[in-house]
C-alpha cells in the first residue's frame, strides 16, 4: 500500500476509535466523580489510611493534600532509587546517583518522565515497578483530579468546597486507570510486548556473535506510560524498542492509549457541567489543532528536500522502518501534544520544521489535547481568557458557564499562563547563557539552540519528550530540570485549584441572549486564535533563532 494512504488510514481509524470512546468513557468518568457510593475496596482503603471519605475540602485543603501526597511521592521515589542495590530484582544495578535520583523522582511525580538515564542500565525491576510505574498511575491521577476540582468550581454554587482529593485520587486509580491498564497490557502482550522478570543475560547468536538480552515487566509499565501520558520508557530507546513497541499495530494502539483519556475528559467536563455542548467545543478545538499538527508534521517530513531523502520517500533518518514515516509522525505529534513524551523516532533527526511542530505542540501549553487532566484544565484556563476578551466584546462582565470572570478569577488565570513560559524560557536562557551547561550541547548552531529550548519547554510543560542531542545527565540539567518540572507542575496546579475555589463561591448567573455563547464555531475560532497568538507566539523569538534559522535558507 502507498505509505501516504496507509498513514491516512491509520489516522482515520484512530479518529474513529477515539470518537467511539469519547462518550462512554467520558460519561463513565463523570459518574465516577459524581457518585456518592464507595466500592468495598475503596472503603477498606479509606479505613486503613484513616481518610474521612465524606469530607468536602476547601481549595486550600485540596491543594495541600495534593502537595503533601506529591511531596511524599518524591521522597519515596528518591529513597527507592538510592537504596536500589539492596532491593530484590535489582538486575545488578547500583544506587542511582543523587542528582539523577532527584531529577528522576521529580520527573516521574510530575508526570513529566524526562529521563536523564537509560532504563535498562540504571533501574532495577523493583524501582521500575514499585517506583516508576506506581508514579505513572498516581501522577496521572493527580492531573485528572485537579481538572475535576476545577470543573466542580464551575458546577458548584456558593460553596467553598471542591471535593475530596483522597477520594478523587483513589477512585480514578481504582475505577479508571487500573482496569484500563489491565486491558491495555493484555493487548500489548498479545502484540509481543514482553512482561517477565528475566534478568539481563548474554546469548550467543547464530552467526557466533554475542547479544545482550533484556527482560523485565515491560507491558505492565508500557500501558500506563501511554495511558497516563507519562512517557518514561522502560528501555532507553523508549517506544522505538521492539520489546516496548513491536508491531505497527502496537504502535497504533499506543497512540490510541495516549489520546483516549485526554479526548474523553472534555465529555466528562460537559456532563458534569450540565452542558454537553461545552464539552464538544473543548474537544473540537483540541482535535482540530491536533489534526492540524499531525498534518503539518507529516507534510514537513515528507516534503523534505534532498535527493536521498526523496528517494527514501521522506526524511527517514532516525525513524523506525517498522512504523514508516506516518507511524512516526503520528506518534511524534501525539506524544508531544499529549504531554506523554514517549518517542518511537528521533526528533533530533527530523527536519527543522518537523521538529518545530513537536516543539510548538508543547509550547501551546499542552492543551491539544494535553496530558490527562492537565490538558483539560489548561484548555479551560485558556477558555476563561478567551471568554474574558470575547465577553467584553459583547458588553457584559465576561462569564463562562455562568461564572463571572472578575479580578480574582483573572488573577489566577493570568498567573497560570505566566508560570509555564517563565520556567521554560528562564531555564533555557540560563542554560544557554552559562559556560558549563553549554558544553552539553552536541550540535552547534541553531540546532543546538533548539535542543536546549526543546528540553526546557518539554520539562516546563511536564511532557518529558526529548529532542536528544543534549547530554543532560549533568549536575546542572538534573538540578535545574528537577526544579523546573516541580515548579511548572505544582505552581500552576495551585492556581487552577484557587481558580476553582473562587468560581465555586460565585452564584451561577443564568444564561440569556446577551451571554457570550461558548459553544459553536465563533467561540472555537476565537479560542484557537488566543491559543496561537497569546500562548504560541510568546515563543516566536526563540523559534526564530532555532528551527526558523535552521530551516529557512
Amino acid at each position: 500500500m502507498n505509505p501516504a494512504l496507509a498513514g491516512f488510514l491509520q489516522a482515520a481509524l484512530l479518529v474513529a476509535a477515539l470518537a467511539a470512546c469519547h462518550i462512554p468513557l467520558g460519561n463513565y468518568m463523570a459518574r465516577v466523580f459524581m457518585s456518592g457510593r464507595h466500592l468495598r475496596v475503596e472503603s477498606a482503603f479509606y479505613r486503613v489510611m484513616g481518610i474521612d471519605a465524606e469530607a468536602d475540602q476547601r481549595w486550600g485543603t485540596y491543594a495541600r493534600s495534593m502537595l503533601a501526597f506529591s511531596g511524599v511521592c518524591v521522597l519515596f521515589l528518591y529513597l527507592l532509587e538510592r537504596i536500589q542495590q539492596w532491593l530484590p530484582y535489582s538486575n545488578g544495578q547500583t544506587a542511582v546517583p543523587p542528582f539523577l535520583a532527584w531529577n528522576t523522582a521529580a520527573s516521574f511525580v510530575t508526570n513529566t518522565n524526562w529521563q536523564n538515564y537509560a532504563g535498562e542500565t540504571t533501574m532495577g525491576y523493583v524501582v521500575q515497578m514499585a517506583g516508576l510505574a506506581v508514579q505513572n498511575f498516581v501522577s496521572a491521577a493527580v492531573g485528572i483530579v485537579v481538572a475535576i476540582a476545577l470543573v466542580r468550581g464551575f458546577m458548584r454554587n456558593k460553596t467553598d468546597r471542591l471535593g475530596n482529593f483522597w477520594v478523587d485520587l483513589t477512585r480514578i486509580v481504582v475505577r479508571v486507570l487500573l482496569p484500563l491498564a489491565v486491558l491495555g497490557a493484555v493487548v500489548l502482550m498479545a502484540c509481543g510486548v514482553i512482561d517477565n522478570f528475566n534478568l539481563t543475560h548474554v546469548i550467543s547468536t547464530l552467526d557466533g556473535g554475542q547479544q545482550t538480552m533484556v527482560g523485565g515487566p515491560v507491558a505492565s509499565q508500557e500501558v500506563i506510560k501511554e495511558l497516563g501520558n507519562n512517557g518514561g520508557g522502560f528501555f532507553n530507546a523508549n517506544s522505538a524498542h521492539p520489546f516496548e513497541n513491536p508491531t505497527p499495530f502496537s504502535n497504533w494502539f499506543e497512540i490510541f492509549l495516549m489520546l483516549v483519556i485526554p479526548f474523553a475528559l472534555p465529555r466528562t467536563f460537559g456532563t458534569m457541567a450540565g452542558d454537553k455542548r461545552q464539552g464538544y467545543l473543548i474537544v473540537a478545538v483540541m482535535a482540530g489543532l491536533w489534526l492540524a499538527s499531525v498534518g503539518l508534521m507529516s507534510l514537513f517530513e515528507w516534503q523534505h528536500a534532498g535527493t536521498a531523502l526523496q528517494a527514501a520517500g521522506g526524511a527517514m533518518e532516525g525513524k523506525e522502518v517498522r512504523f514508516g514515516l506516518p507511524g512516526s509522525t503520528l506518534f511524534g505529534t501525539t506524544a508531544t501534544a499529549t504531554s506523554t513524551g514517549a518517542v518511537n523516532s528521533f526528533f533530533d533527526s527530523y527536519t527543522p520544521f518537523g521538529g518545530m511542530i513537536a516543539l510548538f505542540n508543547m509550547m501551546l501549553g499542552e492543551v491539544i489535547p494535553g496530558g490527562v487532566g492537565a490538558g483539560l484544565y489548561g484548555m479551560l484556563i485558556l477558555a476563561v481568557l478567551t471568554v474574558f476578551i470575547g465577553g467584553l466584546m459583547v458588553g457584559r462582565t465576561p462569564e463562562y458557564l455562568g461564572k463571572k470572570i472578575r479580578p480574582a478569577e483573572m488573577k489566577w488565570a493570568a498567573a497560570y499562563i505566566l508560570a509555564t513560559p517563565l520556567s521554560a524560557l528562564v531555564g533555557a536562557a540560563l542554560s544557554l547563557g552559562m559556560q558549563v551547561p553549554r558544553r552539553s550541547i552536541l550540535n552547534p548552531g541553531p540546532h543546538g539552540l533548539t535542543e536546549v529550548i526543546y528540553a526546557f519547554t518539554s520539562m516546563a510543560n511536564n511532557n518529558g519528550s526529548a529532542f536528544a542531542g543534549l547530554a543532560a545527565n549533568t549536575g546542572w540539567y538534573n538540578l535545574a530540570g528537577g526544579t523546573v518540572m516541580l515548579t511548572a507542575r505544582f505552581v500552576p496546579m495551585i492556581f487552577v485549584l484557587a481558580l476553582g475555589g473562587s468560581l465555586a463561591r460565585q452564584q451561577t448567573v443564568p444564561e440569556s441572549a446577551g451571554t457570550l455563547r461558548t459553544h459553536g464555531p465563533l467561540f472555537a475560532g476565537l479560542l484557537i486564535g488566543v491559543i496561537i497568538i497569546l500562548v504560541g507566539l510568546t515563543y516566536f523569538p526563540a523559534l526564530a533563532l532555532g528551527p526558523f534559522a535552521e530551516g529557512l535558507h
Partner: protein
Amino acid sequence: MAGIRSTSHSPRQVPSGEGVPSGDGAAPAGTRPPAQVRRVGGGLLDPRMLWQSLPDAIRKLDPRVQIRNPVMFVVEVGSVLTTYSAVIHSSVFAWTITAWLWLTVLFANLAEAVAEGRGKAQAQALRRTKREAVARRLAGWKPGDTAYRITEVPGTQLAVGDFVIVEAGEVIPGDGDVVEGVASVDESAITGESAPVIRESGGDRSAVTGGTKVLSDRIIVKITSKPGETFIDRMIALVEGASRQKTPNEVALNVLLASLTLIFVIAVVTLQPMAYYSKAPQNLIILVSLIVALIPTTIGALLSAIGIAGMDRLVQRNVLAMSGRAVEAAGDVNTLLLDKTGTITIGNRQASEFLPVAGVEAAYLADAAQLSSLADETPEGRSVVVLAKERFGIRERSAGELSDPAGQHRAVFVPFTAQTRMSGVDLADGRQIRKGAAAAVRQWVRDNGGALEEELGRMTDGISAAGGTPLVVAEKAGGTARALGVIHLKDIVKEGIAERFAEMRAMGIRTVMITGDNPLTARAIAEESGVDDFLAEATPEDKMALIKKEQEGGKLVAMTGDGTNDAPALAQADVGVAMNTGTMAAKEAGNMVDLDSNPTKLIEIVQIGKQLLITRGALTTFSIANDVAKYFAIIPAMFAGVFPGLGKLNIMHLHSANSAIASAIIFNALIIVALIPLALRGVRYKPSSASAMLRRNLWIYGVGGLIIPFIFIKGIDLIIMNVPGFR
C-alpha cells in the same frame, strides 16, 4: 452619538386630575427636554483639547503616577534605557526610537488627560455655580413654630440638622429637605434646565440641593449634609475623576495586561542569552523596541481614558454615576424594572372614545363630557375637550357663555377633590353634570335617585380590561340623575417603545413593568408595549421582593425610583437610578442620579455600560492581534544579518533592519493617537444578540487588528526609508 439613540423626553406630568389615582409611586414630575446650557462637546475629539491637555500629559510622566499603569510604566522604563543608550552611542536610529518611545508614553498620558479634561471643564462649570452662600439659620426652631430667631452664619458653618430659612432670590446654603413652605427653585446649576421646579414640604418633592436658587416664596430647610459633602461637591469630584477608582472589570483587564506584559518582557529578556549563543547579540535599543512592540500598549494606553469617557458619556446625558462599578453593572443587567408612567406610557392618559349608554346620543354624551371638563386643566381634562371637538365638532365654551344672559345664574365649576373623586359643572339652568371615577359617579347617581343600568358596569369593566381607565359621565336634570355613558381614557404607550423592548430581549434583558394599576389594566398595557412581564398593584415592598427574587437567581437588577419609600429597593438593586426630583433619601440610596428625572434613561444607561465594556474588549483584541505584524517586522530585522534565511520572514519587504524596527515603533505610537477618539466616543454599538455583536467586533477589531498594522508599518517604512540613517 456612538449609535445610542436618544430618547424623547416625556412631557411634564401634572398630577392626575380625575378620579383614578395614577398609582405609580414613582411618577416623574418636572421632566422637560433639558436645555442645553453647559454641555461639553460630546463624542468628537477637538484637536485643541489635545494641545490643552499636553501639560497634564507631561506631568503624568512622573514615574510615581505612571506605575499605576503597568504596561505604560514598562514603556517609560524602556524609554529611559534607550535614552541612556542613545546618549552613549548616538545615531539617527537610536534617537528616532528614543523619541518615539517617549512619544508613546506621552500619547498614552494624553489620552487620559484629554478624557479627564472634559470632566474638568464640567467641574469648572459646576464650581462657578457653587457660590459662598450666607445661611440664615433658625436658632432653637422646631417644625410648627411660627416665631423665628434668625442668625446669619456662613454656609460652611452649617451642621446636619440645622434649620435655615431661604427666601426668594436667595441661594439654598446646603442640601436638605423642605420642612415648611412651598417654593419654586431654579436648579439649572445642576440639571442644566432653566425652567424652575416646585419644592414643597412633605411628600416626594421635598429635597433641595445646595447651590440652587429660590425664585419665589419662602421655605424652611432642614440641612441633611455637611458642608463640603453636598451633592454639588460630590458631582464635582465625580466628573473631575478625583474620586475615580478602578472598576472591577478594569482591574481584571489590568491583571491580564500586566501578566501579558510580564510574559513578553520575559520572552525578550531570555532572548538575549539565546541571541548571544547564536552569535547575534542585540543592542539595548532593539530589545526595548521588541518589548514595547509586543506588550499590549494600545489598550494599556487607552484603558483609563475609556473608563473616564464612559462615565463622561453618562454625564453628557445628565446622569451621575456614584461609582464606575455601577456603570459596569449596568452593562450586566439582566432585569430592568421600569415604571409604567413616564417610561412605557407617556405621563398621562388621554380620552380616546365616548361610549354612551343605550338611549343617549354619542354627541350628547360628548357635549356633557366637554362641559364637565372645561375647567379641568389636567391633560386628561384637556384631552376630553379635544376629542369632543375632533369627533363632534363641539366648540370649546367659556364660563361666561354658560351663564344665562341675565347673569343671575352663573355656571359653577365643581373642582376635583380626593374625597369626591369627581369634577363637573352646575349649569345656570340647574342641570348638573359630573364626571369621574366609575365608583364615585355611580354612587352620586344612586344618591340622586337615579337607576344604574347593567350595561354601564359592562362598559367600565371592558375598558379596564383593555388597559384603559373608564370615566363615567352623569347628569342630573330635573331631580333625578342618570348616567350618560363612559369616557375611555387610554394610556398612550410611547412610540417606539415596543422596538426598544425587542432590542432589550435580543440583548438578553428582561423588562418588567411596575405599575399601581390593577392586573387587568396592567396586562393590557404590557401586551401593547411588548414588555416581558409586569408587576401590577405594586407596592414598594412588592418591588423589593421582586428584586430580591431576581437576585437570588443570580440576576442583576436595575430600577428607577424617586420616593423615600423607593429608597430600600434602590439600595438593593444593582443599578438604582434615583430621579433628581426625588427625595434625598432616594438619591442617597441609588447609585446613579438622573438629573433630567427621565425614567426611560435606564435603557440608555444599560447601553452605555455595555458600550464601555465593548470598547475595552475591542481595543484589547486589536492590541493583541497587532502583535503578529510586529513580529514579522522586528524578528527578521533582528536576526536576518546572522541567519539570512530569516529574511524570508520579512514578508512586508521592509527596507532595512533599522527602518523595519522604527516603522513598528512609530506605528505603535501613532495608533494610540489614532484611537483616542474611538476610546473617548466608544465603539459603535447597536443592540443585538451576543453572537451578532461578537462576530461583528471580531471582524473589525480582531481581523482588522491582524491586517491593519501590516499596511501601516509598510507605509511608514516607505516614508522613513528616505531618511538618512535608515538606508
